[in-house]
């Protein structure tokens, strides 16, 4: 699926497909390393939601949303954060927190690759099932878990 960079969730990556700019501006982005065929990851989000920081190989580049809208990437499938997930089965793709958060959540058997089932989603407050155990997650934690629908 091809989506603009602004469609990426934090931590998600895609392969650059095309840049919809005038020739001159396009050339500038290409010279900065935003080259079709390269993998690009959305790594930092600004306190005010705009601009965004992306990582390409070892470079981190800040791009405003107005420009990011015009850069298109191919993503394998749409990912979403757990807090926006409807009831159903999901696979954990990544955990977007600090070390402490990761340790804590892994103790609860929520790891990268683990399968979970969302039983109910009450405005971001989740009741989920992992390894047969029921678990309640607050919005704060659910925001940091990136999942893929199974």
């Amino acid at each position: 699926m091809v989506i603009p960079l602004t469609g990426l969730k934090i931590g998600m990556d895609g392969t650059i497909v095309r840049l919809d700019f005038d020739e001159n501006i396009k050339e500038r982005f290409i010279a900065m390393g935003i080259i079709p065929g390269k993998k690009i990851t959305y790594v930092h989000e600004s306190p005010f939601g705009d601009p965004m920081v992306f990582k390409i190989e070892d470079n981190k580049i800040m791009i405003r949303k107005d420009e990011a809208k015009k850069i298109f990437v191919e993503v394998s499938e749409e990912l979403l954060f757990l807090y926006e997930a409807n009831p159903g089965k999901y696979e954990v793709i990544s955990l977007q927190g600090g070390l402490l958060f990761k340790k804590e959540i892994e103790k609860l058997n929520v790891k990268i690759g683990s399968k979970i089932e969302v039983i109910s989603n009450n405005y971001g407050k989740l009741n989920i099932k992992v390894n047969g155990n029921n678990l309640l997650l607050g919005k704060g934690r659910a925001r940091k878990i990136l999942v893929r629908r199974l």
Partner: protein
Amino acid sequence: MTFEIAIIGNPNVGKTSIFNIITGSRQYIANWPGVTVEKKVGAFKYKGHNFKLVDLPGIYTLSAQSEDERVARDYFLNEYPDAVIVVADALNLERSMYLLTQILEMKLPVVLAINSIDEANEKGKEINPYFISQTINIPVVLTSAKKNVGIDILLEEIHKVAEKKLIPSKKFPYPESINEYVNYFAEKIKQFDYLKSYDPEWLAIYFIEFSSKNFDYPKELINDISNKFDIQKLKTEYMNWKFNFISSIIKSAVVEEGRSWALRDILDHVLTHKLLGLLIYIVALFFVFSLTFNIASPLSDLIDLGFSSLGNALDGIIKIPWLNSLLIDGIIGGVGGVLVFIPQLFVLFFFMGFLEESGYLPRAAFLVDKLVRKFGLSGRSFMSIILGFGCSVPAILSTKTIANKKERMALILSVPFASCSARLPVYVLLISAFFSKNAATIMLLVYISSILLVLLSAKILQTFFIKGDEVPFTIELPRFRMPTFRNLLLYSWNRGKHFLEKAGGIILIATIFIWLLSYFPNNNDISSSYAAYIGKLFEPITLHLGWNWQTNISLIFGAVAKEVVASSYMTILNVGEEGITYALQTILTQRSALALIFFVLAYIPCFATLGVIKQETGSYKWLFFELFYTLIVAYILANIVYLLGGIFL
């Protein structure tokens, strides 16, 4: 004979560090003629030859879209350097190759310096310089400016290239269709005499890369070429060829073990975090602000004291009254007025240098970019505006790190509306005389208007007065680096020296000019001086605001430095600190005092600021623009406040 060497590279590759190592302290800063892009030139000797080293702006391409890029391209087109050092980043070699290819296509004698090799090795990256050297036929040196590695070899290679003018003879292996086009183009262009000094093959390549926008190609030739070739298709082919060419070189020359960037990512996670990041930014701003104005102010006071005691000591030694006054009030006062800035500028440059070289500034810009964007500014501007509330001089000098020239010009001309600390004594004097009950409200109004003025002015200037290209604000977050103490000192020293040379003279001359106005024709009797005469001249346009000639003179003297408005009142009204309140109440009403406060907020920035504006914009045109612009804005503002004051007071 002196060899001229140019040094160029992407931003943040350590170009400046290499420049500093090679030239040591033998360097100076200037603007390129007619533009605000900074030019650093240094000198050095090697094996009995004199070398001049020109530092070109850090850029990604030679497209000539931004002023930086235009400066670099025009330099290569017109100056014929004896050698060009292209500095590449060992950790980002692929991206640096893009610019390198463009420079090689201009047929310049190039030495490639692959810098930060120590960091690359630490990260498990090995680079084979011989392979690159063989493939594109230029000398390639591995360097580390931080650890002073490879600089000797670099100097040796520059020397060799400059002496023999070694222009790489190998042609790029373009695809057949590109070759065919280039040959045809080069053959045709020979009939145009005015293009004789340019390389015909470069003209051909430059045309497919950037079309005819930034270069004056003959129309008939363009028509001919467009009929014969599909330019769009050639462009795509050329771009594809370039990527493949570069990535094939990189693949063969760089061996790399996959390792992650854990430490940088953790630091970035904190520094760009929604809450923590903002908090750290506020702390950083507070530090720069308070250190600049607090650490430095005792030193400034000391300098001030030194000059006034020097004045006192000389007083009476010279018996000719006008010479005595010129020396003490004019020259010593003026020199002192320049030198008091030195401590705070050095402290500011030191810390700004730290923030810039460590790689923090782009992260700070990222955090607040959205807040000021509506006004045509970017996150980079935010810190300069905040500094402006301390003093406009360092604030304007701190705009150097803003890459977009249009934004930078607008900011330089708008920052003086930020209410600097020198205006405070004037507000305090007037508020305590007229608004002692509502002091806080008035102060708040002043500061809010000040912020609005800065932002609106930046927008208005960019809409109507400052021309420039819209370039998307896209910056790199560079790797973190620990700046060396030596580099920071060198950085502060060069910029401080630059201020003394460029702005100091203007401030001194202006101060002496004001002295002349106040001293003549009646030997130091201000109320019958030329200044008083000018004050009376302006009465017709100020009397309706309730300002008589005494207020006008104080404002004229306030152009030297804003705090002078308060002390001039005491001199003119011939009263001390105690009597000033009552004396002011006899010549001003509440309404006119309020209008005066807002006039002082906006009108003519002090001479020091004007001097720095001239230094940074590189032209007197903008100095005079600023003079009239702020006067008009201040006059309109004062009238509005006077009208509104009539309703509320």
